[in-house]
Each structure stands twice: as structure tokens, then as C-alpha cells.
């Protein structure tokens, strides 16, 4: 294994151990939250709503909940880890090493995507308790999950570098990310919206993610999944490049 590989592996390992060793903080919350979502929206309300796009309501909302959990945790992982390291100065111990900026960005992004994927798997597991989980296009599902968790890991890196206080993390997660997801067609079909709101919704990137994962799971989408995948992949590359530039410039890391 080359020196660069060892460096990358070490930081990825450290980042993954950080959240794996704190399951009450990382894995239990999505299990409980999604159990509540499935129970209330899927079972109690879902039985009154009936089928949407040919599937039960609980199966319709499942992909959206997977996206919501996966991207929230991917974002939170990178942003918290980097911000906490800056807050307590221990990220300095990484900066002063011979690790390249590319390796640092890659490590945080890989670990955060891993956390998002694990959360997605947990939510699917919870969903299985309430309903069957179809798998119409598994390759699309894997591709979308990989891309969106990496994208939000990359956005979390920017958030972690930008934040000057814990309040910033709350603002990003609760006031920006969560509303976008809730208006991203997680709980409803775009068809139920008036034309104006439907067009406005198409500006929301979450719509493409939710529809992509929905296509992978239940084979239903309102947007061409190939277009979504290309756009999201391009966005991921851009965000990771911005991460790299910020690390190279030392934004939030050096004086």
C-alpha cells in the first residue's frame, strides 16, 4: 500500500470510527425518527390516502425518507467533524501532517458518504418492518445513493469550514436542508401541485434526488432518472472541487 493510500485509509478509518462508536448519537435517532414517520404517515395516514402512482402510500414515501435520512447524516457527519475539530483545534493535528489537500477532502467525503449509506440501509430496514420494499432498478438506486451521499458529504465539508459557531450547523441543517427536503416531493407527488408550484419545485435539487431513488426502488419517477443522475453527478464533482480549493486555500483552517 502506498503512503498516500495509508494516509487516506487512516483518516477515513478515524472518521468512521468516530460515528460507529457512538451509535446512540448516530444510528439510534434515524431508527426512532423513521419508525415514527412510517407509523404516522405510512400506516395511520397512509391507509386513508390510498395508492399513489400504483403503489401504497407507505411505499411511495419510503424512498423520500431514505433520501432525507441519508443526506442529512452525510451532511451532518462532515460538517460536525470538521467544525468540532476547528472548534477544539484538533484538526490542526491533521493539517500539520504531510497529507495532501486532495486526500483530506477525499477522506471526509468518503466517511460522510459511508455514514449516509449506512443510515439509508437502516431506514430501509425500518421500512421492512412496515411494508415490503421493492427494488425495481437496483443499479440506479446504488448510483443515486452513492452520488447524493457524496454530494452532501461534500456540502458538509463546506459547512464545517464556514461555520463559526454551533448555531451555523443548526441553521444549515434545520432551516435550509430540511425545508428543501420536505418540499422535495418526499410526501407527495408533483402531480398534486398547481402548475406554478410544480415548476418552482423543479428548481429544488431534492426533487431530482427523491425521484431518482424512488425510480430505483419502486420504478416510478416524474423526472428522467438519467438527466437527474448526470446533473447530480456534475454537482458532486463541482462541490468536491470547491472543497479542494477551500482546503488548498486553508479557508477556516489557517490564519
Amino acid at each position, binding site marked *: 500500500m502506498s503512503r498516500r493510500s495509508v494516509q487516506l485509509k487512516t483518516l477515513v478509518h478515524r472518521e468512521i470510527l468516530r460515528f460507529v462508536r457512538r451509535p446512540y448519537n448516530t444510528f439510534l435517532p434515524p431508527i426512532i425518527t423513521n419508525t415514527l414517520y412510517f407509523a404516522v404517515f405510512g400506516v395511520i395516514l397512509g391507509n386513508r390516502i390510498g395508492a399513489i402512482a400504483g403503489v401504497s402510500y407507505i411505499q411511495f414515501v419510503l424512498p423520500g425518507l431514505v433520501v432525507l435520512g441519508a443526506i442529512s447524516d452525510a451532511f451532518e457527519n462532515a460538517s460536525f467533524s470538521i467544525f468540532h475539530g476547528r472548534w477544539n483545534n484538533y484538526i490542526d493535528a491533521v493539517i500539520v501532517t*504531510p497529507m495532501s489537500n486532495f486526500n483530506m477532502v477525499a477522506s471526509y467525503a468518503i466517511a460522510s458518504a459511508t455514514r449516509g449509506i449506512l443510515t439509508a440501509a437502516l431506514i430501509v430496514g425500518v421500512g421492512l418492518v412496515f411494508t415490503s420494499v421493492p427494488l425495481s432498478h437496483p443499479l440506479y438506486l446504488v448510483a443515486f445513493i452513492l452520488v447524493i451521499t457524496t454530494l452532501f458529504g461534500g456540502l458538509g465539508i463546506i459547512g464545517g469550514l464556514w461555520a463559526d459557531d454551533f448555531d451555523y450547523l443548526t441553521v444549515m441543517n434545520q432551516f435550509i436542508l430540511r425545508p428543501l427536503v420536505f418540499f422535495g416531493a418526499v410526501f407527495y407527488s408533483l402531480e398534486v401541485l398547481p402548475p406554478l408550484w410544480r415548476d418552482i419545485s423543479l428548481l429544488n435539487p431534492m426533487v431530482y434526488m427523491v425521484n431518482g431513488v424512488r425510480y430505483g426502488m419502486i420504478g416510478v419517477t416524474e423526472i428522467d432518472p438519467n438527466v437527474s443522475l448526470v446533473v447530480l453527478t456534475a454537482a458532486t464533482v463541482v462541490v468536491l472541487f470547491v472543497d479542494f480549493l477551500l482546503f488548498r486555500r486553508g479557508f477556516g483552517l489557517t*490564519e
Partner: protein
Amino acid sequence: MEAAIEIDDLRKRYGDVTALDGVSLSVPEGSFFGLLGPNGAGKTTFINILVGLVRKSGGEARVFGHDVETEYREARDRIGLAPQEFNVDRFFPIREVLEHKAGYHGIPADEARERADAALKQVGIYEKRDTRFDWLSGGMKRRFLIARALVTDPDLLILDEPTAGVDVQLRHDLWELITELNEGGTTILLTTHYIEEAERLCDEVAILDQGQVATVSTPDELMDRGTDRITVTFRDPIRSPPDIATNGQVDAVGVEDGRLVISASRGGLVAPDLVRELDAAGYEIVDLDVSRTSLEEVFVEMTRNGSSVADGGEA
């Protein structure tokens, strides 16, 4: 011999504040180099530029010939840093923190574990290997910072106030450890507020004041620049100073409590002639004391109100 650190006209500004104002100096490989200066002199800024925590505003800085910005990976690979602040990963036991540190330098996991254990034994806290940093005592925390700096076997060990707030025994233990490392070929860059530490350990010291190098010299040379004090006690106390030939070696002559007090830049050289002269003049000497100026006194004199810099001192 290659310079471990080569600095040329290094500058750093934080807005309107100038932290480093054209610092130039060279630290020879294998040397024990002290960086002294009052608070705010720019010592930590200087160190942080070398390791990449501060971006320079101008000038050049090289570590073993590698530019700290364009060849940062090569430069940082040679450095072990024990900072003043406790900037340690709180999520993991200290042994794992050291394993991670070694891994960031590209050392494979098996070897990283061996090195972590060796470093913890070297500083005497191996039995605490499964403890998190927050639960260590103050002295152990200092030891741990040294272990973290050593785990990658650096060629340049930078110690920023390593003995701040530690007890006398630990300070001596650390002195012994870093002296051994230096004798083994490791270049040491030490910043300290304990002037005795620099006097005792360093081959050469630079005094930094207001972001500029006031002087670079050996501790002995610096002490020679100070004024020694010769106190002569006579059997019969005197009221006025005797008439003595100074030959330009004496700075001042006076009387305190019936004793003759002489200030001279090299008291050890003046004293024998002085004794002979007083003896010949009929004075009966019962005691003679030559107190050499301390490095601390020279330091205080040089950094008082930035006088050294204003006087044009340079490296």
C-alpha cells in the same frame, strides 16, 4: 551542512497588526536552537508558518530545503510539533491518537501501533494508553504532546513552550529526553519563557521582539554582552570609592553599604587586576563576589520597550 530551517525576510500581517516583520535566520541541522521573546513577539506565528497553520504574507521559509508552501508535504513530513495549546483529538484514547498521527504520515497500521507504544513508553505514560486525553493530568498532557511529536521520528522537533505549567521534576525529565534526542541527531527548535531552559539547553538562541529578530547568538555570547557586578568587602567599610585604574574595562564604580561595587562587561577579567591594585593601595579585602549577568537580564534588557529592534539589531 544543510540548514534545518532557512528563513528569509519572513513577514506576517493580521490586518493592521504586524506579527512578523522581515525575519531572517538559519537553524543548522542537528542544533538545539532557542527562540526567545516576550508575549506577542511572533514566536508561535513563526512556528505555525513552518507547519502550515498560518499563511505567510511574504518572504520565504524552508525546512530541510523544502518550501513550506509549495513543497508542504515534504516539509511537514520532517517535522514533529509539540504545540503550546492542547489540540488533541478528544474522541479517542491516546494510543489511537498516536496511531492516527503516524498513519497521516503514511506509516502502516502495524508499525504505527508499535511506534505509538514506543512513544508512550518514551515519555512515561504507556500505562495510560487506553485513556482519553481529557482524563490525563496536566503533566501527562504535556508528555503526551511530546509523544505525539515523536511518533513519526521527526528530523526537526519543534517544542512550543513544552514545560509551561509543569513541575520541576517533569521539567527536568523533559530536558533530559530532548537533550538525548538532540544528541541522537534531531534538530530541536524550542520556544520558552524559562530563560534558564534556553541557557541550559540551547546551542544558539534568537531573540524575537516585536516581530523582528533582535539578535542570534550563543547563550554565552549573549551573557558576555551584559554587565557583571563585582562587590568587594573590606575589613574597614569605605565611604567613597578608591581611585582605581580602569583601563576602559569598568563601566561604573560606586559604594553601597561600605562596600565597593563595580560594574564591568567582563567581571571575571577585571577582578584579578582589581584585587592586586586594591591590595597595593593598602585596602584589606575580606570578601569578593563576582556575579555574572544572567541570560534573563540580557533578555529583559534587549526586549525592553523594543529597544533592541530600535537599535538596529539583526540576525
